[in-house]
Every structure is written in structure tokens, then in C-alpha cells.
């Protein structure tokens, strides 16, 4: 009895260990490989699951406590923002197009992560690793929901927000993030963690969240700042899961090193390609800008990424194969993407525009090497045509890269005048790629990437019309038919900002609010 009274306080580590490790056991009534069927097929060798280091030691009671506090604060802000028509204090309604891209292209990814980590949280062996995955599954569910909730108010007053899940499964540019995450979720659990926890969360997520949220703060979007930073606080736990997982695999067996290296090469490049949309958002869609894509890349890509890969060098890991080409692209990709989206705005569920003179000057200052030389003249041409009432719209559907699914607009490393094309032949069919790295991803696993649901191919094959559409009818307008299948409201969700309903409404509402 005395021993029960005189109990020494357990340290965080001891307590967490008792609370988590030792809950599981080796099955004896069913073969282990039937209970955990997916831990070996990727070729990763784990000798001792107990060597897993818990990144953060949160027990469920602490998790609920801190997450509950975060949620309480977050929803108080969301409520206040909605009740006070907070969107009237935005710098400009152009800004909202960044948030449209977010809910269309990022929110569904949070959902995939939720389901993917539930799978990993069930199918890994060690309890520590599984609990970390399960908590992440829960966090990702949180992010999906808080994003839907905080963006809900914008949907009530602006276009381009109303059908994000439907669009995500169909619209051409959204197959970029969709195929990215489905690629991860359809991989084995170790590759999934390398893809999402390490390559995306640890290496690249700062490039997504920090500029987005600082941009929101600069542009009067309190609601997004709050959910963003609140979500990002979970992200720190996720990033740590990523780095611990990499170290765990590398420390368990030297045979894991080449497998992990190949995954890092692949997923760095996959993630980097998806971030093209973020680069475009930072450089073009924020009325008040925080930093350029190039600056963000230099801080979070080159400096942090550099430090990380230097650190991992002791395991025999080198920087990702595409790292240099990604650095080379920092002067170009955001401009190339924006020009492309501008000319395809008739089939996109957000608005584009030509930047103002002041904005063009900002871009010149931020991109001294490239902007005036390659991109300003083209933007000025677009402006001219728009002023003349003949905005430049591209009527030909673009060729897409078979891996990243981005239209083929990226240029050769070192030569921004030449579009980069690569191709491979597999079982008699020719496949096209935007870069050496997308090609090499395909070449390593062609049986996966021949399955890609390429939106442009699908349109040409007649798979993107609503049932009952007759493409042979006289006067058939394929663009209208595709918009109908997409459920994009023609003239409201799409086309350029200058003549948009969003602009008219925002200007009228704010004029009235300010003039009152």
C-alpha cells in the first residue's frame, strides 16, 4: 500500500511510452503477414519496430485539450468574420481567386490525407508510428472541415466556390493536385509517408502555407489567416513525423537507402510541380504581396531544403534529383503558369487578369533576370487585346504531361525560350512529359502512370459531356458541353476578372459600405 502512495512522477517520455507502446501485440491466432499484409511489399526492411522515435508525445487527453482550445479560438474568429461581413475589408476581390484555388485544389487533398493516414495508422506495425499516423488522420479531417467552414462565407457572396468537390474530380487543372495525392494514397504505406509526411510536409509545406497565410493577413482575410495558422500548428507535428520516418527507414537497413532516395527524387518533383499553382498565386493573385515565389523558394526551398539534405548526407542521401532544375525554375514557373491560365480562363473556375503597371514593376524588381525580358511583353500584349475587346483565349486544348498533368508550358532548364518536351514509348503507345524528372517517374513505374485520367484526353474521347449530350448535333459547342459537365456556371465562375460579377458586386458593396 505504501508503494502506491509514494509514487514518483513519470517523465513525459516514460509516461508516453507506457501509454502507447505495449498496447499492441504479435498476433498468434492469425499469421502476422495476414494481419499486417502491407509492410513488406515495397521492399523496405524493418528489423525492430520499437526503434521508432516518437516525434511528439501527445496522449489523447492532451491532444483533445490543446486541439479543443485551438478550435474554440478558430470558430470564434470564423463566426465574427461571417457576422460582420468581414469580406468587405479585403484589399480587393481579386484576392479571393487565391482562396478559390485553395478550396478547389488543396482542401480535397486534406481529405485524401485523412483517409491515407487512417490506412497507414492501421497497417504499420509499431504502435508509436501508428498513433502518430492516426493523429495526423484526425488533424487532416480537421483541416478539411475547418477550410470548408471558414471559406463557406465567401461562397455565399462570390462565385467560384460553390462546387469544389465536383470540380476536383473533373476539371482539367485540378487533376494536377488530384493525381498527385492519389499517386501517394495508392502507394504502399512507406512510400505514402515519404511522399506526404517527408517530401510534402517537411520539405515543401512551408511554401504552401506560410506565403498563403501571410498573404491572407496582408489582404485583410482574417478568416483564412486564422484557419491557416491554426492548421499549420498541426503541420509541425506532421513534419516531424516525416523526418522521423525517413530516419527510421534509413537507420533500419542500408538496403532501404536507394529505395528511399528514389522516393525522395520522385516526390520532391511531384510536390514541386503542384506548387507551381502556389507560385502563380503569390506573384499574381495577391493584391498586396508578401514575397515573391522566388524569395519563398530561396528561403524554404534552397536554404531549409539545403540544410536538410546536408544533414541527411550522413545516411547516404543526396539532394533530390530535380533540385537543381527546381532552383533553375524559380525565375519562370509562376509567370508561365499565369500566362497559361489567362488564356484558358474560359474553362477555369476562377478569374485571371493582367497585372496593373505598379504590379508589373514589382514583378520586374523581384525577377530582374527574367521578367522584363520574357514575360512583361506578353502580359502587355494580353492587356492590349483585352482593351480592344478581343481577349486572348486559347481554343486548342493543351497537351498534358502524363505524370504531373500540367499543360506542357515549362521551358528547358537554362533556356526559357524553348518548351521542354520529353517522351517515352510503353507497350507501343507514346507518352509525353514536361521534364526529365516526370519522364523518369513514368519510366520507373509505367504500369501506374498509363492509368492517368488525363482530362484533355478524356474530353477528346467524349467522356466529359453530361449524359444525353449529342456531339454530332448541328451547332454543337464542345466548350459549353464541357463546362456543363464540369458544372461551372459559364459567365460567372469563369472568364476574366475585369468583367466579372465578383468585381461588380464587390465594388458596389464596398462603395456603399464606405460611402454610408
Amino acid at each position, binding site marked *: 500500500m505504501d508503494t502506491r502512495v509514494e509514487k514518483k512522477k513519470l*517523465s*513525459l*517520455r516514460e509516461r508516453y511510452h507506457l501509454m502507447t507502446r505495449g498496447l499492441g501485440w504479435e498476433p498468434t491466432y492469425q499469421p502476422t503477414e495476414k494481419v499486417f499484409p502491407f509492410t513488406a511489399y515495397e521492399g523496405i526492411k524493418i528489423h525492430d519496430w520499437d526503434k521508432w522515435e516518437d*516525434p*511528439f*508525445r*501527445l496522449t489523447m487527453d*492532451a491532444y483533445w485539450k*490543446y486541439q479543443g*482550445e*485551438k478550435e474554440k479560438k478558430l470558430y470564434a474568429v470564423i463566426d465574427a468574420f461571417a457576422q460582420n461581413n468581414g469580406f468587405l475589408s479585403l484589399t480587393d476581390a481579386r484576392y479571393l481567386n487565391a482562396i478559390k484555388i485553395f478550396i478547389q485544389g488543396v482542401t480535397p487533398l486534406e481529405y485524401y490525407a485523412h483517409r491515407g493516414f487512417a490506412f497507414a495508422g492501421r497497417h504499420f506495425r509499431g504502435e508509436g508510428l501508428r498513433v502518430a499516423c492516426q493523429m495526423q488522420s484526425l488533424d487532416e479531417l480537421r483541416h478539411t472541415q475547418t477550410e470548408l467552414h471558414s471559406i463557406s462565407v465567401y461562397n455565399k457572396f462570390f462565385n467560384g466556390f460553390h462546387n469544389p468537390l465536383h470540380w476536383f474530380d473533373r476539371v482539367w487543372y485540378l487533376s494536377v493536385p488530384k493525381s498527385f495525392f492519389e499517386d501517394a494514397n495508392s502507394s504502399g504505406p512507406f512510400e505514402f509517408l515519404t511522399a506526404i509526411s517527408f517530401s510534402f510536409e517537411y520539405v515543401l*509545406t*512551408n511554401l504552401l*502555407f*506560410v506565403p498563403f*497565410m*501571410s498573404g491572407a*493577413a*496582408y489582404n485583410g482575410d482574417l478568416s483564412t*489567416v486564422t484557419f491557416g*495558422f491554426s492548421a*499549420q*500548428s498541426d*503541420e*509541425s*507535428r506532421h*513534419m*516531424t513525423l516525416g*523526418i522521423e520516418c525517413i530516419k527510421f527507414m534509413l537507420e533500419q537497413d542500408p538496403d532501404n537507402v536507394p529505395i528511399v532516395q528514389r522516393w525522395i527524387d520522385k516526390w520532391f518533383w511531384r510536390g514541386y510541380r503542384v506548387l507551381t499553382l502556389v507560385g502563380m498565386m503569390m506573384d499574381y493573385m495577391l493584391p498586396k504581396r*508578401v514575397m515573391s515565389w522566388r524569395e519563398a523558394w530561396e528561403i524554404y526551398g534552397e*536554404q*531549409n531544403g*539545403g*540544410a*536538410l539534405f*546536408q*544533414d541527411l548526407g*550522413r545516411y547516404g542521401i543526396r539532394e533530390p534529383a530535380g533540385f537543381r532544375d527546381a532552383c533553375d525554375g524559380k525565375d519562370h514557373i509562376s509567370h508561365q503558369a499565369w500566362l497559361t491560365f489567362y488564356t484558358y480562363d474560359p474553362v477555369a473556375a476562377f478569374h485571371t487578369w493582367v497585372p496593373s503597371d505598379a504590379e508589373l514593376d514589382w514583378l520586374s524588381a523581384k525577377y530582374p533576370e527574367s521578367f522584363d525580358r520574357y514575360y512583361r511583353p506578353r502580359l502587355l500584349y494580353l492587356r492590349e487585346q483585352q482593351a480592344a475587346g478581343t481577349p486572348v483565349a486559347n481554343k486548342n486544348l493543351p497537351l498534358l504531361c502524363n505524370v504531373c498533368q500540367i499543360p506542357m508550358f515549362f521551358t528547358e532548364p537554362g533556356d526559357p525560350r524553348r518548351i521542354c518536351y520529353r517522351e517515352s514509348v510503353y507497350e507501343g503507345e507514346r507518352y509525353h512529359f514536361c521534364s526529365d524528372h516526370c519522364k523518369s517517374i513514368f519510366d520507373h513505374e509505367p504500369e501506374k502512370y498509363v492509368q492517368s485520367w488525363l482530362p484533355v484526353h478524356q474530353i477528346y474521347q467524349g467522356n466529359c459531356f453530361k449524359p444525353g449530350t449529342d456531339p454530332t448535333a448541328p451547332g454543337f459547342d464542345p466548350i459549353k458541353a464541357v463546362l456543363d459537365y464540369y458544372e461551372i456556371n459559364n459567365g460567372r465562375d469563369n472568364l476574366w476578372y475585369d468583367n466579372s460579377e465578383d468585381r461588380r458586386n464587390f465594388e458596389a458593396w464596398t462603395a456603399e459600405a464606405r460611402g454610408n
Partner: protein
Amino acid sequence: MSNVFIALQDTDEARPIIEAILADNPQSQLTHSPAMVKIDVPNRLVIRRERIEEITGLPFDLQRIHVNLISLSGHIEEDDDQFVLSWKR
């Protein structure tokens, strides 16, 4: 030598944590962004519970950092008394 960093929300609640970091990591470089504070330190950054308690005059549970944390880099070591970010463990 590479930097590690931590980014925290620029809130009242985070202020004592930021102060504690600056006090215990003399080589800190502080950057303010909208709504965010980022602190870079060469190689190793430490947050000490006792320092925060000294500043606030109240007991502090280090796991509370989660509420205001935005991002970080480096390897993490966390116990009851300190939270450390570093390269090479």
C-alpha cells in the same frame, strides 16, 4: 553550420515563448511577417520551460507550444523541461 528555425503566431500567448527563446538563444535572428514571428538560430534552438515560467510567473506545460506553433525545422527533442531543435542528433 545550418540554421534551424521556429515560427510562431504573433499573439499575446506566444509572446513569453518568443521572449524565452530570445533570452536563451543569443544568436537568434528574429523576422516579423504578418501575424507570424520566425526565429532562426544557427544549429540549435532551445526553449526552456523554466525561462517561460520566469517570464510569466506561472507554471507552463511545454506541450502548450502546440497551440501557437506555425512551423519549424531540424530534429526535435522534447521532454518536460525543454524543447530542442537541432541538426545532427
